[in-house]
Every structure is written in C-alpha cells, then in structure tokens.
C-alpha cells in the first residue's frame, strides 16, 4: 500500500487570523483517509474541510491535519423520501446544484455555500430559518465517524446516540466524520419570495421580527456605526421558498442591488492593503447601504443565491481585510436589552464592524457545544485592529456571559477557557461523552487546546 503524502502547509480559517503551519494530508478516498489516520504516529489529528470557520476551530499547529475536501462522493439517494447519504467533503453548494433541479433543497444553509457537510455538522451550523428548522444537525439521520480507536462507527439517534449527539456541534473533536445521511427538504422552486423592510432602530427591528413568525427565513443587516436614536437601524429581510408560478416572475429587485453594492465594496483583492477598511470607509459604506434601500417595504422574488449567499459571488472577500486578517464576533443573548448594551459598546469603541448581521433565533437550545439558543444573535466582522479590538471583545464577552449568552465557537479565535465555561454550561456533559470515545485526546484543535476541550 502506498503511504500518505504529508506536507507542511500554511493553514488558516476564513478570517485569516491566526495562520499556522500544519502537517497536512489530503486523502482522495475513504481508504486513504484510514491510511492517513493510521500513520499519525502518536500525533493529534484534526479534520479540515474548506476552512470556512473563521478562527482556529479547524487548525492544529502541533499534530496532523486531514484535509477532507476531496472526499465528496454521493453514496445513496432516495428520490421519494429525499434522504441522501454523502461523504463529508461534499459542499452545501454541490448539494443544491445537484438536487434543486429535482425539487430538493438543503434544509439549513449558512451564509456561504462553500462549506462541507462535515463542517456543517461539526459546527452544527444555523441558517436564516433557525426558528422553523433548527440547526443542520437536526436534519442529519446518521453518520459514519472514524474514531480514535481507528474503527469506523455508524451512529444515529438510535445507535450510539451519545456519539451522535456529541459529534453534532462537536467541532470535529469526536473523530473524523466520513459520511452523513441527510434529510433534504422538498421545495417547489429555488426562488425566494421575499420582503425587505428598512427599520430605524432596534425597537423597530424587534417589532418586525415578532411580526415575521410565518416567514421561514429571516435575517437583517444592521448599521453598528450609528449611535443615538438611530442605533441599530438596518434592513430586515424575510422570505420563503417561492411557488413555481412565483418563481417565474423572478425579478432583479432591491436585494440584488444592495448585494451588488456589498460585492463591489468587497471586490478587494486589489486592495491588499490595510487602508481600505477603516472607520471612515466603513461608515460611508453603512450610510450607502442603508440609504440604497427605500424607506418602507419592498416585495420581490429573488434567486436563492443572493438571498442565502450574498458574498459568495465575491471570491476571497476575506482578503479585503489585508494581511492582518479579521475577526468575527458572533454572540447570542437571551435578553434584548443586552443587544442594546453591546451595540453601545461597539459604537463607542470607534471600532467599526463592516458587516453586521442580526437575527432572532428560535427557542431551541441544542446543547453540547452547539451555538444557537433562544434569543438574539449578532454577527460582527472587525478588521484585526489588534490589542484594542481584543480588549473590546473581552468586554463584550463579559456582557454576553453576564446575561447567559454565548459566542459562536465556529467563528472564534480568542475566547478564554474561563469565559467559555461560563457561556456553555453543558460543556461538561459533552466532554464526558467525548472522552469516552477518545480518552487519549487523539482529536484536537488549536481551539480545543485553548478552551480546554480535550485532554493534554
């Protein structure tokens, strides 16, 4: 049998902070994956898909990284039930490309289609439909996991349910997810019937949110530069899958126009400098984005891509932040008042977030290390301003933890172990299961070491 090619490669998450040198292999098949794992020689191991988590969740600087992006075979599909079994390196985008023409959509999609199924499970990703559909893991029926023992085990709600539970949202720390069986969602079309509504402040946001419960998908952009009476102004977007008749009326609406604005602003490989995104340009952008949308409500039928994946059209938009990279801060807080406090800290910090997204989650708390729970989530992208930014984020951590909120590990690069424990009270139960399946801590990541999630 040929041995695996191991090579040291620079590896980073989507935020390009931090960047580490990692010993990587890129198997082409399931059997090569098992071979690579067996050659670990006592080193820690981590699977890495497309590197779309932001921080160090998919990085392992001392150990071996198995790149899973070439493991993308579709193994079984039932046309009548919409149940699909695929290898973990298949992307959400590929699933849509193959199955949308047959009337099936991926039940939960994140803001980019370039994530792998394995990554979607590991981070138990959420989408704009959390209130109606829960997380990605809720639509997974079973998985095959390569365990620390070298065994490949199938787990589901009925079989090794503890492993199943700990792997969903388990940040890749229970084993390498080799394949998953997913329930797709039947849709009449890929188009989205949507409304976008401009709101003047946070109160209006919450009000529209409450009135939008019968919309399957909701999300809003907010301007977090503005303070005072206009703090939390933004644009609310809500939608549902369009019927075939509606899809026929698909039109170039205001959403495409704002999306285009963002895309133009981000088309930034040309700006490989740290000068492009500063407080002034971010303020300008936020003004333009807000005013581009007419006051009031707009109704349109749009394609799924600008609705779900507005930034995917800009390849490598993460490079717009220059060499220093950027940090995303996504938190959920169960109390609305806390959102106001958080926005206030940010607005006063003079550190502007370029793109800020706000949304109300459904009530479901998925437990373990899964992020979503009842409350309001806010996602902020900050250019890496260095120490002052980290200091502000620590202030935010305290605010978030204080009200029983948490931050998203899939986007984290700097949370302390102590804060993490306050934010995720279910972590110990998760850790117990993890340790049962991997007592030696074979599976690790830079994130797991930082947060004390794995032995050693």
């Amino acid at each position, binding site marked *: 049998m040929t041995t695996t090619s191991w090579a040291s490669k620079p590896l980073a998450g989507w935020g390009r902070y931090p960047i580490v040198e990692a010993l990587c*292999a890129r198997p082409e098949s*399931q059997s090569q994956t098992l071979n690579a794992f067996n050659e670990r020689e006592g080193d820690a191991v981590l699977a890495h898909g497309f590197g779309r988590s932001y921080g160090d969740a998919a990085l392992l600087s001392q150990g071996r990284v198995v790149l899973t992006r070439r493991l993308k075979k579709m193994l079984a599909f039932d046309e009548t039930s919409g149940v699909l079994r695929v290898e973990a390196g298949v992307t959400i985008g590929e699933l849509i490309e193959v199955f949308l023409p047959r009337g099936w959509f991926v039940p939960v999609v994140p803001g980019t289609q370039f994530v792998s199924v394995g990554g979607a499970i590991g981070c138990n990703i959420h989408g704009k439909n959390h209130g109606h559909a829960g997380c990605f893991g809720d639509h997974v029926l079973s998985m095959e996991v390569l365990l620390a023992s070298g065994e490949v085990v199938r787990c589901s709600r009925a079989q090794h349910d503890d492993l199943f539970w700990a792997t969903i949202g388990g940040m890749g720390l229970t084993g390498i997810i080799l394949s998953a069986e997913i329930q797709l969602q039947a849709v009449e079309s890929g188009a989205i019937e949507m409304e976008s509504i401009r709101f003047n402040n946070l109160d209006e946001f919450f009000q529209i949110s409450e009135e939008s419960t019968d919309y399957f998908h909701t999300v809003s952009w907010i301007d977090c530069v503005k303070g005072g009476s206009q703090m939390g102004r933004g644009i609310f977007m809500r939608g549902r899958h369009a019927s075939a008749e509606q899809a026929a009326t698909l039109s170039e609406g205001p959403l495409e126009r704002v999306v285009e604005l963002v895309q133009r602003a981000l088309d930034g490989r040309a700006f490989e400098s740290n000068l492009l995104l500063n407080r002034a340009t971010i303020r300008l952008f936020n003004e333009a984005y807000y005013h581009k949308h007419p006051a009031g409500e707009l109704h349109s039928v749009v394609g799924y891509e600008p609705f779900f994946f507005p930034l995917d059209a800009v390849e490598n938009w993460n490079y717009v932040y220059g060499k220093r990279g950027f940090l995303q801060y996504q938190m959920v807080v169960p109390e609305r008042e806390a959102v106001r406090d958080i926005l206030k800290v940010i607005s006063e910090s003079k550190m502007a977030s370029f793109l800020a997204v706000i949304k109300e989650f459904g009530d479901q708390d998925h437990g373990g290390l899964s992020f979503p729970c009842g409350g309001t989530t806010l996602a902020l992208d900050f250019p890496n301003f260095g120490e002052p930014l980290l200091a502000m984020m620590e202030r935010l951590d305290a605010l978030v933890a204080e009200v029983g909120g948490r931050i998203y590990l899939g986007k984290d690069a700097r949370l302390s172990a102590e804060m993490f424990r306050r934010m995720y009270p279910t972590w110990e139960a998760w850790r117990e299961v993890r340790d049962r399946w991997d007592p030696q801590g074979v599976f690790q990541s830079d994130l797991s070491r930082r947060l004390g999630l794995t032995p050693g």
Partner: protein
Amino acid sequence: MTVLILGATSPIAQAVADVYAAAGLSVALAARDVEEAARAASDLRIRYGVEAQGFGFDACDAFERHATLVSEVEEALGPIDVALVAFGFMGDQQASEDDFEKARRVIEINYTGAVSVCEAVARVMVSRGAGSIIGLSSVAGERGRASNYFYGSAKGALTLYLQGLRNRLASKNVHVMTVKLGFIDTPMTFELETGIPVASPKKAAAAIFQAQGRGVETFYYPRFWGGIMGVIKSIPEKVFKRLSL
C-alpha cells in the same frame, strides 16, 4: 456510449469521469480499490443519472485478465467508445535504486500494465472500427532526469508506445490520444513546493474531454509545459548533467 476509466480512483480520473458522465455516457470505473470504485460509481449515478459501475482492475495483472475486464465491461454497459488509461505510479526514486523489485513495479505499472490494457481495448475497438483511447503520460517522459528516471523512462516508453499504436490504428478509425501532463493538483504533487502553477484536476479533465472530442493526437496540459519541455530538451547533455533537475 460508454467510457472505461482505468485507475478510476485518482483525482484526474474522477474528474474525467465527471465530465463524461455529465455528457451522458455510461461509465465503467476500474481500480484496485474495488470498494472505492463502487462508491465512485454510485456518485456518478446520483449526480448525473447515468449508468455507472465499479470493476476490479490491477495494472500488473496479465493480458488475459485485462481482456476479461474489457468483455465484462462491455457486457455490463455496452461497447466501450472511450478508454482512459489514468493509472500511474511515481514510486520512490531512491528506493528503486536500492531495490530493483521497487523499480520493476514502477516500470510495470506505468508501462507494461498500460500497454497490456491498451491492447485489450484496442482489440475490441479495431473489431468495430470505432473508438478512442486516451493515455495519460507525463512530461517526466520527455527527458531522463537523475531524480525520477524510473518513472520518467516508463512514461517515455508509454508515450512512444501510444505513438506507435496511433499509427497502427489510424487506418482502423480508432483514435489514440497522448496527454503529457505537467503539474496537476494530485497526491503526486501535494508534497512539492514548486514555483510552477499546479492545475486543478477539473480543468485538466475539461481539456482532455475537449481534445478527445476534436480528435487531438497529442498535447501538453497545462499547455505551457510544451514550452518548458522544449527548453529542457534542448539543453545539451553536458550541461544537463550539471543541473540538478
């Protein structure tokens, strides 16, 4: 219409299979890793709604076994219109120098095995007076280099063999195409740190598909390798010996 892919688990082979399946051809995936070939077949069936099946295949098997494979494939999926010889084995140069058994394996997989299976395919294509054989050779077969001459010489021999086969089959209406591959993003190049750009298997597959459709006889991919090899071949032996290439 059926395409037979030999060495079907390599990334280039898989990408080529994708392109032909997308064009609606039935696909026979032949590989040593039978289980993986079966998985790849299910992938093609689901993605493209075509017929696809995995077959066991070892380049080092005898000619009879290769001929049997060809008839098994034709029985299952119909006449083979296109056959792609995609397998190859770089081996380890140092190990091959130390142990002839290792060198022999490199030669047999890349040359003898390829010739054997091409003959088996050519036989059925000639009998029908139609078909296309694609051989994946390498720029390494253009000039003997200290660092990989076992692999290089086997690929060089394969290039010559395909040339001869092409000449023989021209009158039988069977097309033979030689693809001289440069750096493609595969396990062979994963460890390399090279200043030369590495092409994606997907792009290589699209180029192979197009070239086969147009009846191209021999081409470099990526194309700029034609220029690079022109230069490398023109370096006098005296000088070449002193370059550590």
